[in-house]
């Protein structure tokens, strides 16, 4: 039984966890750096402990300080939130070794999913579809040809030692494969001193679709549907929605059951998200996030389930409080991540909030630590608020989101609200026809 939780995070997610604790009658201890003395998660907590100076590596990433804070405040559990130490298997392990319940998966599973190659292998063995490819280095053009015949074109050839786009070439068909293979191999040698390459199926315009799961210590695994997070820029998601306009009910059930079975097989506990690229009605595993996600509220809105509450209960040893059959998807939900940055140049914009008014009304939720006079520190992530709305259908959801954005007043700093408003007027977005490259294209069009 968990009675006192130390929240090893800051900002809106610390507040989100604190709210769940309050509603469960659990005491919440906030930690903070000297830059966050006036933050809302500190002001609302039952207790707070300053763990270090503004730099994250000395405060929110400072494992000894955080574990000491948990000890002196007599907390019995630690919730890591997202980011910071949430996917640090060492932190999870040390927390358990010091007698605290880690509100998350086992350190073993965090470690497994943190290793991209081992993770792919593990989920593949458990039945989750992955990007087909050579599974290792491709020695010569003959071997490349046979892979091409097996998995089909287009293919992407990547340097085994590579990164940052170097030594990466796309072969559209069999004719261009020889040239692409030789180029990639040559570049691999030139840039990394190693000509070895591997081959994967090349996805041209995929969507990013992820499946939310929750698992308990009793072996129950339940999926809570998907979220479409294709609206992203430089791998930073900006708008998420659930359900995805790209999936049919049967596709949803199918991927949900594949994922549920796999997670059961892997023996995972707590909440987690399996991220996929989705193209031509097929799913390809990207990675598993072994933590609560930023965009979890859109799932909560369509399921009517408090994921953080469930996560804490499961960590305390309780079984999941509902069954798969009891999970009913209702209506549509969208989330806008509002960042303290210039909506066109994306330049960060920290500073003091001179005027603050949060939108409200039916189906509107704001997860944010902002308030009038709050100073957005420059030391941390620029996301300052999440505006989440729910509607009976996607159309109503869009109308409500436009309405809520127009009500939202955050003065004194620049925010991404104008960009959100612009996206919501784009015909492609309105019709739900977009891929992971869509926002990038829109933004570059704008800058030209």
């Amino acid at each position: 039984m968990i009675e006192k939780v130390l929240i090893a995070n800051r900002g809106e997610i610390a507040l989100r966890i604190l709210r769940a604790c309050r509603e469960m009658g659990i005491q919440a201890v906030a930690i903070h750096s000297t830059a966050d003395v006036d933050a809302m998660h500190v002001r609302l907590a039952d207790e707070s402990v300053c763990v270090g100076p503004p730099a994250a590596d000395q405060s929110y990433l400072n494992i000894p300080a955080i574990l000491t804070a948990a000890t002196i405040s007599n907390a019995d559990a630690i919730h890591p939130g997202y980011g910071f130490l949430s996917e640090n298997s060492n932190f999870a392990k040390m927390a358990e070794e010091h007698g605290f319940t880690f509100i998350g998966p086992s350190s073993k599973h965090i470690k497994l999913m943190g290793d991209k190659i081992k993770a792919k292998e593990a989920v593949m063995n458990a039945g989750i579809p992955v990007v087909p490819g050579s599974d290792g280095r491709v020695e010569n053009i003959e071997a490349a040809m046979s892979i091409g015949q097996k998995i089909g074109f287009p293919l992407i050839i990547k340097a085994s030692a590579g990164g940052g786009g170097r030594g990466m070439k796309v072969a559209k068909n069999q004719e261009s494969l020889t040239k692409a293979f030789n180029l990639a191999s040559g570049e691999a040698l030139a840039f990394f001193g190693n000509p070895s390459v591997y081959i994967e199926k090349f996805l041209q315009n995929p969507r990013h679709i992820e499946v939310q799961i929750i698992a308990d210590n009793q072996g129950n695994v339940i999926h809570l549907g998907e979220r479409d997070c294709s609206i992203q820029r430089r791998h930073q998601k900006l708008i998420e929605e659930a359900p995805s306009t790209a999936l049919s009910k049967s596709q949803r059930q199918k991927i949900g059951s594949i994922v549920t079975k796999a997670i059961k097989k892997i023996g995972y506990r707590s909440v987690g998200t399996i991220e996929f690229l989705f193209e031509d009605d097929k799913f390809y595993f990207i990675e598993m996030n072994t933590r609560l996600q930023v965009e979890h509220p859109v799932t909560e809105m369509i399921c009517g389930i408090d994921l953080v509450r469930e996560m804490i209960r499961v960590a305390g040893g309780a079984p999941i409080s509902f069954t798969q059959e009891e999970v009913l998807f209702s209506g549509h939900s969208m989330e806008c991540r509002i960042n303290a940055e210039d909506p066109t140049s994306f330049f960060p914009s920290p500073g003091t909030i001179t005027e603050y008014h949060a939108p409200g009304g039916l189906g509107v939720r704001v997860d944010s630590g902002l308030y009038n006079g709050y100073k957005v520190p420059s030391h941390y992530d620029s996301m300052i608020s999440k505006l989440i709305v729910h509607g009976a259908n996607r159309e109503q959801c869009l109308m409500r989101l436009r309405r809520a954005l127009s009500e939202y007043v955050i003065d004194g700093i620049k925010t991404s609200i104008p960009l959100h408003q612009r996206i919501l007027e784009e015909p492609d977005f309105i019709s739900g026809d977009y891929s992971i490259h869509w926002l990038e294209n829109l933004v570059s069009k704008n800058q030209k």
Partner: protein
Amino acid sequence: MAKKLSDTFDKELVKKLASLLDETGLTEIEYEYENSKIRVVRSQSNSIETINNQSPIELKIPTGGGANTNPNGMVEADRDPGTVKAPMVGIVYTSSDPDSKPFVQIGDKVVENQTILLIEAMKVFNQIKAPKSGKVVQLLVDNGSPVEFGEPLLIIG
């Protein structure tokens, strides 16, 4: 919840190790016997000094809601240039063990680099040293009390 470490560890031994550390000029000693292990580490001298006022860290006093562990009178202490602030979160000890006399008491003269307190964090005892010579004018923490990062510990006048 039996998380109080103070009643399980051998304070005499820690004291011995700490003085050995001083004598030898080592930065770290680890001592292991049977099932217990004690590690005494000397803080990097510059880390303590940096935090102690040579480059003042901006510290604000929590205003609203949440209970904090700070004693009264912190506002004045926070502004005093002679205030020694906690370089880490932990449990503060005013003496090397309960039977020994405190490192320092109000009115005592201290010299720069003299050990004035211990802060225990993750079973490591960190010596807090006087950033300058002077007289202890205020002691702001009690033996065995938890302290936050940046919390005023004592004032050297």
